[in-house]
């Protein structure tokens, strides 16, 4: 293995390790179990969304609607509990159903109505940003809120639901690992296993790499694409559930920052281990990378716009890694 191959394969992991060392020296309190868990918690939302969008990237698609699916799910969870006075289980199921349904519609629009993926999911994004506001006429949802007709909503967030965002599991230290981190890790392992080891994941990669070859090999190409969008939608809605549980209310939001961070994580993932393709492990590392960077920079009192700049720079470097450096060895 020559130097370039080594750089392509381990460059990003080395960069991540270097960042951790740098922040440990530059700030106090960066290296502790709490800080490590916190980084995971801060990336759990974007990480989950990024894992979902990875599925669409694998089949050669893209999903711009994940941010708004997450915020719509958050609104739906709040609405189901606060306005419809249902329990946590109903709220969670409603969110998952919304995610799956939106994914299905995205898939059908893209595969059967032949709208290009970026445009279809962009449209869906706008649609959801509007739709989430219709039931409450643009109000955010919180316990005791006033409804458009003047009455007061009687329900409130189920404690079991809030626990999804706030409960902590004992691990090394008592009350250390938040539920959202557990969800992130479970989903990351699931999607990684699914994409790498099952025949469904294998054929999804085939569809994304050469759809005609996959079709000629007998794979139902459209079905795989639609499933990818359903996975993406469901993951985004899980992100929305965790968001609602953390905030304890349903906040009007477009979710565009969630989308951008998730896409950045998935694209950074291309560069991890020189994969040069969407992959779940890389996506998880990419999300972690962004989390470490933001945690460290915030602890050093770096303002938000500089952080955005650094995030963008990392993404550009990762893309150069992927498309330029590793591309040359491919030829």
């Amino acid at each position, binding site marked *: 293995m020559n130097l370039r191959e080594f750089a392509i394969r381990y460059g990003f992991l080395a960069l991540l390790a270097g960042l951790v060392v740098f922040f440990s020296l530059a700030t106090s309190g960066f290296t502790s179990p709490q800080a490590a868990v916190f980084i995971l918690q801060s990336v759990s939302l974007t990480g989950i969304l990024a894992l979902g969008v990875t599925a669409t990237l694998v089949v050669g698609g893209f999903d711009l609607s994940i941010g708004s699916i997450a915020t719509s799910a958050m609104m739906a969870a709040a609405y189901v509990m606060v306005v419809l006075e249902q329990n946590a289980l109903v709220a969670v199921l409603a969110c998952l159903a919304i995610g799956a349904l939106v994914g299905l519609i995205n898939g059908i629009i893209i595969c059967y109505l032949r709208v290009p993926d970026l445009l279809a999911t962009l449209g869906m994004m706008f649609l959801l940003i509007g739709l989430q506001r219709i039931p409450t006429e643009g109000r955010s949802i919180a316990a005791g809120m006033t409804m458009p007709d003047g009455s007061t909503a009687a329900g409130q967030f189920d404690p079991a639901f809030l626990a999804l965002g706030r409960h902590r599991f004992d691990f090394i230290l008592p009350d250390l690992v938040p539920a959202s981190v557990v969800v992130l890790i479970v989903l990351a392992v699931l999607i990684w296993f699914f994409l790498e080891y099952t*025949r469904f994941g294998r054929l999804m990669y*085939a569809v994304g790499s050469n759809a005609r070859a996959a079709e*000629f*090999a*007998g794979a139902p190409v459209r079905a795989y694409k639609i499933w990818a969008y359903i996975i993406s939608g469901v993951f985004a809605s899980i992100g929305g559930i965790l968001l609602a549980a953390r905030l304890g209310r349903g906040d009007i939001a477009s979710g565009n920052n969630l989308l951008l961070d998730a896409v950045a994580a998935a694209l950074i993932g291309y560069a991890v281990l020189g994969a040069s393709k969407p992959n779940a492990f890389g996506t998880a590392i990419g999300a972690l990378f962004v989390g470490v960077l933001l945690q460290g920079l915030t602890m050093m009192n770096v303002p938000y716009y500089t952080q955005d700049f650094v995030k963008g720079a990392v993404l550009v470097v990762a893309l150069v890694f992927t498309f330029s450096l590793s591309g040359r060895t491919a030829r």
Partner: protein
Amino acid sequence: MQGTPVFVVKGLMKSFGPNRVLKGVDLDLHPGQVTVLMGANGAGKSTLVKIVSGIHSADGGTVELSGQAFAPSTPAEAMRAGVVTVHQAINDGVVPALDVASNLTLDRMSGKGAPLLLNPRRIRREAREVADRMGLSLDLSKEVADLTLADRQLVAIARAMAHRPKVLILDEPTSSLSSSEADRLFALIDRLRAEGVAILYISHRMSDIRRLADRIVSLRDGAIAGRFEDKPLDYSGAVDAMLGRKSGHDAVDARSAHAPVFSAEGLRLHAGAEPFHLDLGKGEIVAITGLVGVGKTALAETLFGLRRPFGGSMRLDGRPYLPTNPADAIGQGVFLVAKDRADNGIVPEFNLARNVSLPFVHRLSRFGVVRRGAERQRAREQIAELGIVCRTERDEMYALSGGNQQKAMVARWLAEPSRLLILDEPFQGVDIAARHDIASKLRATADSRATVLFVTELDEALETADRILVMSEHTLVGEHVNRGVDMERLLAEVAGRGLRGAA
């Protein structure tokens, strides 16, 4: 009738890396003549066209236009000098979002000294002049996107002719036109010929060639293989020169089928095509040959469920067979090694083992999880069976040579037993050694199934098949057992005379 040629190509050479595409081509074009250039895929036609139209530069040789040296470095330069090319992809020649009038005058708009503001009436007037000169009767205000392919083609040519070129090159202009649409194109070409333009017409379609050619030049393996100028033109000879036969290829010990597997009755591939009959038996290899665009791929795709027949019925093992999609066909034991492996076969992100396992990955899985050991074992077996040259079964596809890539594509489908194995142009971009390996593997395993090959090159059919069928104009026009084949009749059938005689 031969005057002085207006366009003379001498000893033209071009290599891409180690691949010598043109090995010294000589060609001359005369004013008022249509010269047809025939050549199989990979013979070097496109490269020749790209050099004279300024897209590529030659490695050696000279080109003269009206006695002057001609070496354009851009397409615009070639056009200004008077050599205009209408490429195969019709939309390269027109701007679909603009109307016909704008398209016809586009080059004047963007040229030097063009007025800054557009005067719609002037554009319309100039466009009308161009259209009238070409005998083009089109609504000039229509958007090109709304035109039929044929009309777009005419607009592209008319636009090219607005430069009043000395040489017009048409690269397979009828490949996406119906026959009535093509007639309008031919009328335009007749008009240009009468005006004294030297025309180079590149095509495989025998009907076009019969209609237009004043002379035929056959290109084979980067060199001119034959010139046919004496009337009546020797069409079979031209086809023969283009497809060529190397003497002394291994004679095949032609076998006959020992049980019927597949049959088709009254099969029609599209509305205008004659119905035909097809029988494929167990143990035999049948090659269906014919020029490019005569319906070979259409038939392969019909057998594999990628398209529906226009009429007729098919039976597989005595049962009606009408697959709805490839998965259905594969389920019934009909496999296709598709042509153009880069587009239709290879999954570039997968390594060799994963490419081989692709269609049957479900049979290599337990509870949905791929058994990687079994997958690699299968790949190793196939590497040994077909003699794929590689380091390990985990090699990336781009690391393999074309022949080995193609072996992997064939291995993919030989790994499981089939009833009917279809191979569409399986020797495309494959070196001789790999071609022999694939052919002998096919013959060695043919006993358990019916095998049908679609090939343009006669050599490939003669080397591999037990029986050769000839296709022309979307129907079958001849049958030969591969034992002392009557080459004259075969070539005549390929050249299209067989159909007329039979019909």
